[in-house]
């Protein structure tokens, strides 16, 4: 954090330098469980069925909705830095939600479930 009154001169915008804004904790901002981690930030796409769609939209905010499908289901995006908490959250929807992307997060959920079925 830089105090603007301590800038000695004007700030220059460097148009040839681009960056990705990091996912960091900001005081006063509520962080979701899947953001409580030091892992590399991944943008996940999750399909949620119509009956549960209003709740997820309300919870994440309309800005998280990437797609509204004709059947009422929605595709939401979530920035994930804690994969375990993300998996746990998605599984609370049981078979009414599905991780669409990225492939490794989807595979993580599938492997977790396969392990549980195999253990029975």
């Amino acid at each position, binding site marked *: 954090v830089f105090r603007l009154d301590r800038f000695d001169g004007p700030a220059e915008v460097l148009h040839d330098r681009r960056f990705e804004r990091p996912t960091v904790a900001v005081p006063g901002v509520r962080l979701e469980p899947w953001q409580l981690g030091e892992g590399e930030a991944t943008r996940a796409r999750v399909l949620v069925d119509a*009956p549960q769609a209003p709740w997820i939209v*309300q919870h994440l905010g309309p800005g998280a909705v990437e797609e509204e499908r004709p059947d009422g289901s929605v595709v939401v995006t979530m920035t994930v830095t804690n994969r375990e908490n993300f998996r746990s959250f998605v*599984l*609370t929807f*049981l*078979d*009414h939600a599905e991780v669409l992307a990225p492939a490794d997060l989807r595979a993580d959920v*599938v492997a977790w479930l396969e392990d549980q079925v195999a253990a029975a």
Partner: protein
Amino acid sequence: VSRGQGAPPARTSASDRVARLLAVIPWIAAHDGPTLGEISERFGVPRRKLLEDLEVLMMVGVPPYTPDTLIDVTIEGDRVWLRFADVFARPLHLTPEQGLALVVAGAASQGLPGADDTGPLATALGKLAGVLGVDPAEAVSVTLGETRPGVLEALRTAVADRRRVRIDYYAYGRDERTTREVDPHAVVAHQGAWYLRGYCHMARDRRLFRVDRVVDAVVLDSAVERGPDEADADAAPIELGPDVPRVTLEVAPSAAWVTETYPVDEVTELEGGWMRLRLGVAATPWLERLLVRLGRDARVVAADDPALAAAGTSAAGRILARYRSS
């Protein structure tokens, strides 16, 4: 060790311990080496638990957690001395928001029965409120949980006007969305969320609804008549009755949060930090969620209903089928 009826609590939750430490720390610091016996007696804490607390206290401090930033606990013989790290001696600098939060919390405590209107808390609140330019008795608007536009207002109107309300509700426990008519009794706040208390005509019983799961609410013309005993009934917590089927789980140490999150009838500590717990299951999807989230960190060892014993595996198979079909 059991936590059943009449038995003492078997385990100490993290919140219990924090609450106890917050009371014990200033008292020890303000006295010149009280004995373990005196502290145990004053706070009603067994000596063994007190020593465990003091061990935790030695690791309390602020970053970078070097020795000079940790609380210093000295136990000599039977006496305890406590010295705050230097950082605690610095004047406390609060932002206006932090100060206001402190005034609100303090004013709420002052509202409890038995609070001393002229005690140290009241005096400190008065000084802090003076600096902030607020009146501690002023009402403060607190925003709890997100609710859909118009829903909270409709429910409050229905309560105030004593009119029945039709709600479109997602029942998380049962994993189903239903439309039901409710005689609303009150809209209450609990642990950061709004709830509607009322008589549900679909369930034919009193129910508690989380307002953030109400998709839509329509106030109807039907008037609500309340019997004289209903206010008393509302004041009582809604608990899982004895008719609700029970399940016994064994959970890994990493799943200890379950015992602090859900009402459990009984907890037994096992080897390796595992715990056996017995809890009621009002709706199967609730147990399915819990089990698929815990994976191998939980196993069902007994269930009143055989279907509950297979709930986790069944749900995992169902979810897998969805992934494999797409």
